[in-house]
């Protein structure tokens, strides 16, 4: 369902595009992604999971998961979350046997108890039978089908140069770019999204002032003669001496910078509870993207599971966009954002503390969330039981329990990271020369702090690239960015359940019990555990 217009929406309502998905015609607007257009058309099953062929819907809407992976002939393994609509495309979900709705392989889910972690290492090793097993596995586990007549696409390269390269055009990145340019540096700012602004354009807490602040900052950046803005451009890697390949749809730009500011943000992480992969259970940021970027309603009745202030803000965002929010389920006993909770309560939203979602309940057809069972948070190490829980009817559950830094480029550049208990995430400890970090990847989450952290990093990058000559001019920003009032991530948003199906890795269909079993088998080192279970080794490479 489409919502009322919003100033920041990416869609052009005057231009409709027709496309088909699984043989049915649908209509979306120009600027929609495939997923947003399908979700607006009330399609809830958009893919089948890799191993058990369970129905899947929107999770991150940001290519941080691959629930929705499609194919149209030579266009193979397309990430529908971030791929714009193409007129008359004919999409099918990959990895199904006979269509996404009646996938014949869904019986595999029933066999789950007989397919423990690492089962194929143990069952399919005999030399004599291996060729047969291999054929079977290649049939069962492939993603898209290779089209042998795929056209050869030429992908040219070019070289680019700049003083400061800013990666990520969210609030902190924009503020870093503007500060560096004001100090005289020649700045390039890139973002993988189709438009700049990042979280500042959709994580508003129902407060449009934040949106307008970021919009104004964005306009200043675009108007600045020394800043080049490149959206839909991915900073694909970091090589020696600040050399970063920037990949867009048509070419690769080998960008040589004198200094780099990494403002790549954070990936929102799902909570773990029974049936947390049902269509309708999504990350809070995904719902905010749907509601603000594409003006699509995530659902009709929303419950929010949260362990940070972002969850309350997401609930306020839903209310601001006219969506019914019935309850906020808070994992913690207390927190420092009481005013957000009071505001929600005043607007008729029930806030439950020290509670958790024990189980998500599917509807009769099994293709959408119908209710959630709420119970007291069990102590770590014990499983929750579905008795003595309260059932709340809803078709959408938003999860907002924590963030993981998008620190890939920082790691490649040789940054040493340390775990910061106050924000429950890794933050840069010692950065290489000429590399700077700001925003969420640097452990800074409060909106004003992000802008300030961006100014600090931009200033340092300008100095490093030979502008803003002396440290004296730095004085203005040499302040310490204030510490976060509370951790934006919960240390353990995981609820064990005797009946399982509580997924940790959505790409590889890994349940909580798979990890316990792997440890029991002796793979108790984190590196071994990862490889034995294949956690984070699917197409989204550990982003969720």
């Amino acid at each position: 369902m489409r919502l009322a217009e919003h100033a920041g929406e990416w869609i052009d309502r005057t231009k409709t595009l027709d496309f088909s998905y699984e043989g049915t015609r649908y209509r979306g607007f120009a600027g929609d992604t495939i997923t947003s257009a399908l979700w607006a058309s009330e399609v809830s099953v958009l893919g089948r999971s890799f191993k058990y062929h369970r129905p899947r819907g929107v999770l991150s809407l940001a290519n941080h998961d691959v629930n929705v992976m499609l194919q149209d002939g030579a266009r193979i393994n397309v990430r529908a979350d971030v791929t714009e609509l193409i007129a008359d495309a004919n999409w099918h979900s990959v990895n199904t046997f006979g269509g996404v709705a009646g996938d014949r392989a869904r019986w595999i889910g029933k066999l789950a108890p007989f397919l423990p972690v690492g089962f194929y290492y143990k069952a399919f090793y005999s030399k004599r039978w291996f060729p047969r097993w291999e054929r079977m596995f290649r049939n069962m586990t492939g993603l898209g089908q290779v089209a042998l007549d795929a056209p050869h696409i030429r992908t040219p390269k070019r070289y680019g140069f700049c003083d400061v390269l800013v990666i990520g055009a969210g609030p902190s990145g924009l503020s870093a770019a503007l500060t560096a340019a004001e100090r005289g540096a020649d700045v390039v700012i890139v973002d993988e999204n189709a438009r700049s602004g990042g979280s500042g354009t959709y994580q508003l807490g129902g407060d449009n002032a934040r949106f307008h602040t970021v919009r104004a900052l964005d306009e200043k950046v675009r108007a600045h003669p020394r800043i080049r803005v490149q959206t839909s451009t991915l900073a694909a890697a970091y090589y020696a001496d600040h050399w970063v390949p920037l990949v867009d749809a048509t070419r690769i730009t080998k960008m040589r910078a004198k200094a780099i500011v990494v403002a790549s943000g954070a990936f929102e992480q799902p909570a773990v509870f029974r049936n947390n992969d049902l269509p309708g259970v999504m990350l809070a940021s995904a719902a905010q993207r749907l509601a603000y970027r594409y003006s699509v309603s995530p659902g009709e009745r929303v419950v929010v599971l949260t362990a940070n202030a972002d969850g309350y803000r997401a609930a306020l965002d839903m209310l601001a966009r006219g969506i019914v929010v019935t309850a906020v389920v808070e994992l913690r006993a207390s927190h420092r954002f009481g005013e957000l909770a009071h505001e929600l309560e005043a607007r008729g939203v029930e806030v439950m503390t020290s509670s958790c979602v024990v189980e998500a309940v599917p509807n009769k057809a099994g293709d959408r969330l119908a209710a959630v069972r709420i119970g007291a948070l069990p102590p770590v190490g014990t499983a929750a039981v579905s008795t003595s829980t309260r059932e709340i009817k809803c078709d959408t559950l938003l999860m907002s329990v924590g963030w993981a830094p998008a620190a890939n480029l920082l790691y490649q550049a040789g940054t040493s990271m340390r775990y910061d208990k106050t924000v429950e995430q890794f933050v840069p400890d010692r950065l290489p020369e000429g590399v700077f970090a700001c925003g969420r990847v640097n452990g800074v989450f409060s909106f004003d702090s992000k802008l300030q952290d961006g100014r600090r990093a931009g200033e340092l990058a300008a100095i490093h690239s030979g502008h803003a000559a002396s440290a004296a001019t730095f004085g203005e920003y040499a302040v310490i960015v204030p510490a976060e009032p509370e951790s934006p991530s919960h240390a353990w948003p995981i609820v064990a359940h005797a009946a399982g199906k509580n997924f940790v890795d959505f790409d590889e269909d890994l349940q909580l019990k798979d990890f316990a079993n792997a440890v029991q088998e002796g793979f108790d080192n984190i590196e071994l555990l990862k490889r034995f279970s294949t956690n984070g080794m699917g197409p989204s490479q550990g982003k969720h």
Partner: protein
Amino acid sequence: MKIMTCPVNGARPVSEFTYWGELSEMPDPATATDDTWADYVFCRNGAAGIKKEWWCHTPSNTWFIAERDTAKDRVIRTYLNGEEA
């Protein structure tokens, strides 16, 4: 890709350069013992650390000496032979 500074042409990508071996003092062939001479001809010190090496900027055929820290993968300085400051 790394950047190396040619003493004549300035900073260039390292693909334009070739490495020509460690710089070592030639012992006097007339007086050197066989051991010293064999060591000079055949033996190279591969231990990581600060090295003095011959490099050549191939497009301009500029031969020069580079001091590199091979442990930290860093070029410390480059200069033409005999122009060491």
